[in-house]
Structures are given as C-alpha cells and as structure tokens.
C-alpha cells in the first residue's frame, strides 16, 4: 500500500530523530517520523509501584531480548562481552537513559592528530558548541559553571543535589587531589519548560514518572508535533527503497496492524541508533547496492564502539541515603580523561558517580557476592550492606576497529520477519588496559572515601547502551559512510543522524553530542534546501 509522498521521512523517534524533526519543522515541509514503539504512559512507570526494582528485570529491563515487549527487535549479542541495551518508544532510549549529559572535549575531535590513533572528526568542538547550546535549552541541563575539565559553558538549571553519599565520595576525591564536578544532567532540578522538578525518585534508568528527566517524549516531541511533524507510532521500517536515479525514494514499513506500506519521500533520515541504522542499511539491498545501501565503502556496520564500563562499588560503615536521587547523576571526575602514555594506554575515561541501590537491588548484590546469604545469616548480612553502598562507573573510550561489527543474523528475525542484527565485538588491548587502570583508581578513591570493601565488575556486561561508529562520517568516501553533515556519500538524499556517524567515542555519555550533531545536520539541510539534491 503506497502513501502520499512527503518531503522528509525520519526513521526513529529517539534522541536524534526528535531533535532533528523539531528543528526542520520550521521549514513547513511535510515531515513524517516512523517509530516502531509507542507513546508511553508515565503513570505506568515502575516508580509508581512497590515493584519498581523487580521491573528492571522485566518490562523495563535494559536488554530488548528479555523485555517481552512486542515493539522490540531481538539482537544476537552472544558474540560480545557487552550486551545491547536500548528502548523502542517515542523518546527511544532516552526513556531509560541516566540523563548524564556531558559534552565531548576538544581533544575528542582530534584523536589522530594528538594521539596517532583512529581518525580525526571532520569538525571540531567550536563548530559543534552552538548546537550543544541549543540542545541545552531544549533539554534543560542542570549543572554548575566553572568546571576546569572542559571549555566554558553555562548550564540552564541548578545542579542535582549531591546528597550525603555525594559528600562522602567527594571526600575521597579531595583527599587524593583529583578532579570532580557536579554532573551535567538533563534533569529539571527546578520547574522548567512545563516539566515538574525532580523529586529524587532514584531510578532514572527505569523511566521518570515525574517527567523531570529530559526524555524526548517530554522535550522535543510535543514541540515538533505542534509545529506540524507527523509522528506515526508502531510503524517498523523494513527497508529503504531506491529509485532508478540512485536516490532514496522512500521506505517500506509495517504499520500498527501489520500492513505493509510504502512511504515515499524526497529525503530519508536514519535515526535508529548505532545498531538499528546499520541493520536497516544492510537490509536495504538492491542491484545498485548489493552489499547494503550506501555501503560502497564496505564500512556500514563496521567500527562498532561501545564504552567499556568498569563498575566499582564501595561498602561503607555509615548510612549514605544513596537510594535517593538521580542514580546516574551526582558528580563526574575527569582526572584521567586526557591521554597520559605513562598509564600504558592512549585516551582516557571519566568516572561517573552512581548512587546506591534500593533494598531489592542491595539484596541481589549481596546474593551475587555471597554477603547476603539465605537462611539464618540473612538479616545480619543484609544489614551490613543496606544503605552502605555507593560507587562509580568508569566510562572508557573505545577506539574504532573494523573487526567490531553489526551484521545481519542469518537465522534470527523480528516479529515481522526482518533479519535481526548480530553483534561481533571484542575488547581491544588498549581498552582492556584502560579498564584495569580505571577500576584500580576507582578502588583507590573509594577506599580514600572510607569504603571498607570494594567490589569490581569489568567490563560491565549490561552496559551496551552507547552504540557508535557503524556509519562513520568523514571526507573520504572510501573511509567513511557519510560526509561531515551525515549525508551518505553514495546516496545524497539519505542522512544518518544517530551515534552511527561517530568517528571516535570520547569517554562520556553520547546523547548530548548525538543531538547536537542532529541539530547541526538539520541546520545544514535548512540552509541548503534549494541546492541540496543538485
């Protein structure tokens, strides 16, 4: 069934698709966004019930393979020590993200020039900075000006509270003379743009019932829809179609009733994340593109980057009240962010303080490490652990390697029969060394803060939530999939605006940069509309 043609079709309503659609809406072009998930009802979110911790292992789990939601597609990630985490809904993975919202550093765009590894980006920090600023206004970023670890910026909102736990951990960083600074957090710490202020529910990564967290269903999308963007939910795209002229001419998708439809469009925009986007390109084969659409370089699906995470948890003697407050947003340390070759690796990592656990997660942690046994010693073991845990994750910069890939699984498919992605990934020696360094430093600082014991998990297996590099941008068509604006070298009306275009990964959460890049691409299209397809 064929639809009336539109000017632009955007695939995916997450972080990037929302920002892009909102920005482009001012052109008054007809823009349709196809999203395989649906609008969610915050009154059903986990923190509205007593079972909020258990639902992290159920319908609000991180892995699409265990959630049991019909809108999800399966991912074969058995070939990776890090498993894929995503979410399919209006808002995409921002529904579950921690809202930790740092910017890249200038050096992140010049990795090859400075450190002789990977490639430089075809843009620099200064070029992206104005789009970070726009995004900060739209998402609402809490923080504190004056951080010496990055270029100056002005947060739009007061920082999230440190809480008692933050004070205790900061003590450790201070005693070692290490950098720390209140997190840049996409959380409304005061009422902002119609959003209620944060009330410290705790598990931002199980969605925010309060609406304080800046998921794009409550930030960009209401504005984009009011501006005329049509958002069609429960629509799963199977492939991008190409005309005789070699241009993309639309997409084939299954609607909410499972009916196959063909949406024609002048411009096609991919915003499906670093796994979904290469999956769709590889599923879009034709005589002109037998190895997948826009894949003459052979790089679609290659150079997959995660952020390998090292998690270090400290057990303290004092109550920390660490189950209160945004669990991924407290403070950051970038003491080890920039390259120091004496450490035995290039590039670096951030420490992101992670607040403690609720009672259920505490008990399960104790079950896993043997400190909360079943039977007669149960209550004594739990009392030793409850409200005494706090720690951090080290977010390590991954470097691009062509052996780390997203391909199509030969057997696995989704409920519409569309081949599912298969992940093949291994940690590089550089990443492994960095991880080891980070957890050793993490243990050191937690002990300095007073931890009597530390627990280490590295790499953190569930932490495949930053998906980058699988349709990288660049100026050389033989070494990149898109140009510096996210436009595919091979198909000039096809754009990629998600983390797939990242050249390198930096060592911070990528959402802010993904959105800044999407806004920049939208601006490029707006400024060049008259000649875009010449």
């Amino acid at each position, binding site marked *: 069934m064929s639809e009336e043609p539109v000017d632009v079709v955007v695939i995916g309503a997450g972080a990037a698709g929302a920002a892009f659609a909102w920005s482009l809406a001012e052109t008054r072009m007809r823009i349709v966004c196809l999203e395989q998930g649906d609008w969610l009802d915050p009154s059903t979110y986990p*923190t*509205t*019930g*007593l*079972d*909020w*911790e*258990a639902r992290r*292992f159920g319908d609000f789990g991180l892995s699409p393979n265990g959630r049991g939601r019909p809108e999800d597609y399966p991912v074969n990630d058995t070939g990776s020590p890090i498993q894929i985490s995503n979410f399919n809904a209006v808002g995409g993975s921002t529904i579950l993200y921690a809202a930790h919202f740092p910017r890249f*550093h*200038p*050096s992140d765009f*010049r990795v090859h*020039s*400075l450190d002789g590894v990977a490639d430089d980006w075809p843009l*620099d*920090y*200064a070029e992206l*900075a104005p789009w970070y600023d726009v995004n900060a206004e739209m998402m609402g970023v809490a923080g504190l000006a*004056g951080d*010496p*670890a*990055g*270029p100056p910026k002005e947060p739009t909102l007061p920082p999230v*509270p*440190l*809480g008692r736990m*933050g*004070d205790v951990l*900061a003590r450790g960083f*201070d005693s070692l003379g290490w*950098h*720390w600074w*209140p997190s840049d957090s996409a959380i409304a710490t005061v009422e902002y743009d119609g959003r209620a202020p*944060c*009330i*410290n*529910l*705790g*598990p931002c990564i199980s969605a925010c019932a*309060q609406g304080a967290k800046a998921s794009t269903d409550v930030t960009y999308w209401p504005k984009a829809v009011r501006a005329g963007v049509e958002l069609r939910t429960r629509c799963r795209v199977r492939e991008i179609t190409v005309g005789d002229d070699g241009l993309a001419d639309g997409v084939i998708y299954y609607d909410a009733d499972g009916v196959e439809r063909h949406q024609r469009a002048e411009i096609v925009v991919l915003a499906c994340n670093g796994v979904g986007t290469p999956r769709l390109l590889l599923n879009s084969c034709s005589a002109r593109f037998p190895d997948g659409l826009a894949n003459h370089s052979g790089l679609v699906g290659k150079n997959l980057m995660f952020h390998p995470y090292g998690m270090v948890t400290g057990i303290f003697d004092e109550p920390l*009240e660490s189950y*209160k*407050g945004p669990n991924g947003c407290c403070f950051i340390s970038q003491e080890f*962010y*920039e*390259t120091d070759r004496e450490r035995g690796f290039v590039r670096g990592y951030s420490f992101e303080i992670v607040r403690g656990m*609720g*009672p*259920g997660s505490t*008990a*399960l942690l104790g*079950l896993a490490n043997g400190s*909360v046994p*079943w*039977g*007669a010693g*149960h*209550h004594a073991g739990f009392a030793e652990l*409850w409200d005494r845990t706090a720690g951090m994750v080290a977010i390590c910069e991954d470097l691009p390697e062509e052996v780390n890939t997203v391909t199509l699984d030969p057997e696995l498919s989704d409920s519409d029969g569309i081949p599912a992605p298969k992940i093949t990934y291994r940690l590089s020696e550089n990443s492994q060394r960095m991880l080891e360094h980070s957890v050793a430093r993490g243990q050191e600082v937690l002990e300095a803060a007073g931890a009597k014991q530390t627990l280490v998990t590295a790499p953190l297996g569930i932490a495949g939530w930053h998906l980058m590099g699988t349709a990288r941008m660049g100026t050389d068509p033989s070494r990149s999939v898109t140009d510096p604006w996210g436009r595919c070298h091979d198909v000039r009306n096809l754009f990629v605006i998600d983390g797939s275009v990242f050249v390198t990964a930096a060592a911070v959460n990528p959402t802010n940069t993904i959105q800044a890049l999407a806004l920049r691409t939208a601006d490029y299209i707006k400024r060049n509309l008259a000649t875009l397809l010449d």
Partner: protein
Amino acid sequence: MSDDSSRPFASDQAQELAAVLDTLIPPSEDGRMPGAGALGLVRRLEEICEAGADLRPILEGGLTALSALARERGAGSFAGLCEDERPALLEAVGEHAPAFVPTLLFHTYAGYYQHPKVLEGLGLPARAPFPQGYPLEAGDLGPLERVQARGRLWRETGESDA
C-alpha cells in the same frame, strides 16, 4: 471462597513452597522482619509462572525432588520437617534440581524487599517512590574551589576550541 483449581500450584505444593521461602528468608530474631513465606510471595511466584516465564517447571521439579528427600528422612513433606532440618535439605536438592534454589532465591529476594511489611521493618515508608519522592541534601560544594584552583585540565588542540 476462591477457586484455586486454575492456579499453577496445588495447595500442598503452595504449602511446601511457603515453607521453602521461610527457610530462605526466615523471620528475624527480633521479630522486626517477617519470614518470606508469611508474606504471600507464593502468589507472586504463581503470577510470574502465569506470565509465561520458564519458572514453573523449575519450581515443580524442585518441589518434587524436595518431597522425595523429605520422605527419605521419614517426613511426609518438606514442611513436615522441623526448621533445623530444612536448610540441609535445600543444600541437598541441588544435586537433583540444580536450578531450583538459585532461581527461587532471585525471585524471593526481589519480591521480599518490595513488600510493605519489609519496607516498614527497614524503617522505610511503605510506598512507591512516586509521587512523594524523597528530600535530598544539596551537599557541600565548597571543596570545588580547590578543584578550580588547579586551572584548566582539558587539552588544547591548537584550534578555536572554546
């Protein structure tokens, strides 16, 4: 009176399961914390079984093995053993049903610590986090003066960085 015939576990199985739960998490000696078997967690396990998870065969297999072990010890059932004898049987059942105790532990711990009586026992409000939320101290930002005093930490690239 409710009709239990459609529930995953017959009443004798449910009784056995409750005794197992009380062995995994017994009441605390000071009486502040209840045992897991007394909290209705069997019904929660049944709901998980009904939702289509793979839990039911694991639990059924474990209960069958436990009953057999109890009979070998001269008791009619696991629940018929005295409380001191039960832990040894749960240790032993792993040979016959290796997934039983580990799987049950996960669901028991998760279910126990979301129960209002348990939250009250921990001194927590017996409610969901939303909509009241929690107050949180701002914390001490004074030490950041020292951090700032170190000066710029980010690396120059020789371009128009800032």
